[in-house]
């Protein structure tokens, strides 16, 4: 059994030999992309925790400084009723992250449940669960969430998070199923089965630890999707607009003709924050992807200048003839993730 990338990804869980894991962990963090992503994410998490205390003004408080461009007093300018945009963004960070993370946690749990059981159990269970996740995959998520959210009388953060989770788990389930399929006939799983381990135990202690990287990447992808969806819902006024988040800021900017009045400071900061947070998460995901599939690493950073030529690229050949791994690691990166 050769050591493939996924086998080495044991970020937590089962007790592996100590040294290779540490090396693997360090390599994951060494990439400049991943580090940039993590630092950016940490920054936003900090804002989410401390935002309401850091905010210089009450985000709802009106003042007589109407529609002022950014200045020393109001870093991001003011709205048409004199509210401080900077404070609105700071206070709004928490809502964005909470919904994003909550939705991603629920969606990831669902996708692990559906994907791993479909892949591992096979047969009729697989057929039904795969069909279910394929159906959810092709149904357009956003219109569905809009419909559900507009029928619910109270659209607080939790309702929105659950609605997003229910429509976004299918992608992860599909990838996890493919990965589980490639794992379940591996020698060590067969060995565990032969020693009489129960199915739940095999899934929990043999399969799941080897799916950590895939699950993590799916989780991060879902956070991106959830944050974008949540902001969109707030922007079009479906979600509860009495809670501040970046989408609410954009909602008020749009409904008060910020564009026509040239008040760029009203909508630019919120958009940049969304883009920065999204980039941070995407960078972390690239780190995970490159960790799983070393061929994606770019040649930059090496001291010697090597011109990569196809046909001369050093490739680690796997000794096992199963080819499944190859196939499934493509799965995690091939299709553009929404």
């Amino acid at each position, binding site marked *: 059994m050769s050591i493939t990338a996924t086998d080495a990804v044991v970020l937590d869980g089962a007790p592996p030999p100590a040294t290779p894991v540490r090396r693997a962990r360090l390599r994951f963090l060494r990439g400049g992309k991943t580090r940039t992503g993590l630092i950016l994410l940490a920054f936003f998490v900090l804002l989410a925790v401390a935002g309401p205390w850091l905010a210089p003004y009450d985000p709802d408080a009106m003042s007589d400084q109407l529609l002022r461009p950014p200045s020393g007093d109001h870093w991001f300018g003011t709205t048409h009723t004199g509210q401080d945009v900077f404070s609105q963004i700071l206070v709004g960070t928490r809502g964005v992250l909470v919904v994003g993370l909550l939705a991603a946690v629920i969606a990831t749990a669902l996708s692990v449940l559906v994907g791993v059981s479909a892949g591992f159990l096979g047969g009729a269970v697989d057929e039904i669960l795969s*069909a279910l996740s*394929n*159906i959810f*995959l*092709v*149904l*357009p*998520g*956003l*219109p*569905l969430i*809009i*419909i559900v959210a*507009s*029928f619910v*009388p109270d659209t607080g953060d939790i309702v929105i998070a659950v609605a997003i989770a229910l429509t976004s788990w299918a*992608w992860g389930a599909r990838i996890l199923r493919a990965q589980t399929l490639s794992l379940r006939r591996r020698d060590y799983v067969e060995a565990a089965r032969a020693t009489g381990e129960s199915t739940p135990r095999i899934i929990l202690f043999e399969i799941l630890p080897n799916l950590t990287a895939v699950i993590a990447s799916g989780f991060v992808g879902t956070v*991106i999707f959830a944050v*974008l969806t949540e*902001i*969109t819902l707030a*922007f*079009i*006024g*479906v979600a509860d607009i009495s809670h501040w988040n970046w989408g609410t800021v*954009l909602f008020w900017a*749009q409904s008060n003709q910020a*564009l026509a009045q*040239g008040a760029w400071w009203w*909508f*630019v900061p*919120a*958009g940049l924050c*969304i*883009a*920065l*947070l*999204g*980039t941070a*998460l*995407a960078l972390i995901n*690239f780190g995970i992807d490159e960790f799983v*599939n070393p*061929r*994606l690493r*770019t040649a930059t950073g090496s001291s010697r200048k*090597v*011109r*990569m030529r*196809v*046909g001369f*690229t050093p*490739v680690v050949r796997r000794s096992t003839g199963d080819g499944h791994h190859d196939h499934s690691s*493509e799965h995690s*990166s*091939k*299709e*553009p*993730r*929404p």
Partner: protein
Amino acid sequence: MKYILQRLAFYAVTAWAAITINFLIPRLMPGDPVQALLSRYQGQLDTKAIDSLKALFGLDEQQSMWQQYTDYWAHLLDGDLGLSFTFFPTPVSEVIGQSLPWTLALVGTTTLISFVLGTGIGVYSGWKRGSWLDGLLPVTTFISSIPYFWLGLVAIALFAEKWSLFPNSGGYDNALVPAFDWPFISSALYHAILPGVTIVLSAVAGWILGMRNMMVTVSSEDYVMVAQAKGLSERRVMFGYAARNAVLPNISGFALSLGFIVGGTLLVEMVFTYPGIGFQLLQAVGGKDYPLMQGVFLIITLSVLAANLLADLVYAALDPRTRKEA
């Protein structure tokens, strides 16, 4: 053939699921918003309209769930989606019929452009891995993290409000009457540029990344090495051997991300007040127009399914393996 039949069956099941979800949502949710609407418009509705709304939203308490379900299907098959309240008393099917061509034209063209453009750039940057094109990756990542609608807002602020190069809203010049003549079509094209470019810009990044990753994976395959060893030209190996194989997952990815693209396009329409189906959805949400909302959802879903089926057929034509597995 077996493959195509399987796909057809799958889409039939999915369409059924979507319609059933559409049937269940108003019945499972607490409160009866449609009942409130009905009583507000009491005097202005004729009995037939009331009947169809009752059937579509399950307001008739006496009926069993099954009875409601068959009634619902009967109305759908008649093309009866109820009355729109925002455009009272126009039927929902008529409102959708007017706005659907706009969306189809906008989404269809921009999706095709961004797919071709993104795949092309992806092929090239995957082939020339480690060249300056890698510098494009962080940029595309950043752009793909921006919500479609925000990019639209910025586009309006810059190109419509600040420099007045393009109109800031609408699908055509209001002075014109929609017709198949040159003034109208040119005006429609002119109005479509800004929303179109917005969509292409946000959608293209995903294709570049996906295609690049596949190219990188494929270009270390043995058959690519053989092709190079044979002394074939660089172009021929790149397109005929590597890209040809790498594009397959991108096409199935294309099908899967259609739903997402359509969602983004709806938002672009909302921002640009483009007379398509997304803008109708926004108005329906604002006016609590449940029949219109549900009609729009149904049409969007069915269109996405049809597009998916099309992508599957293309895939079957390109990949001989799907045809052989019989």
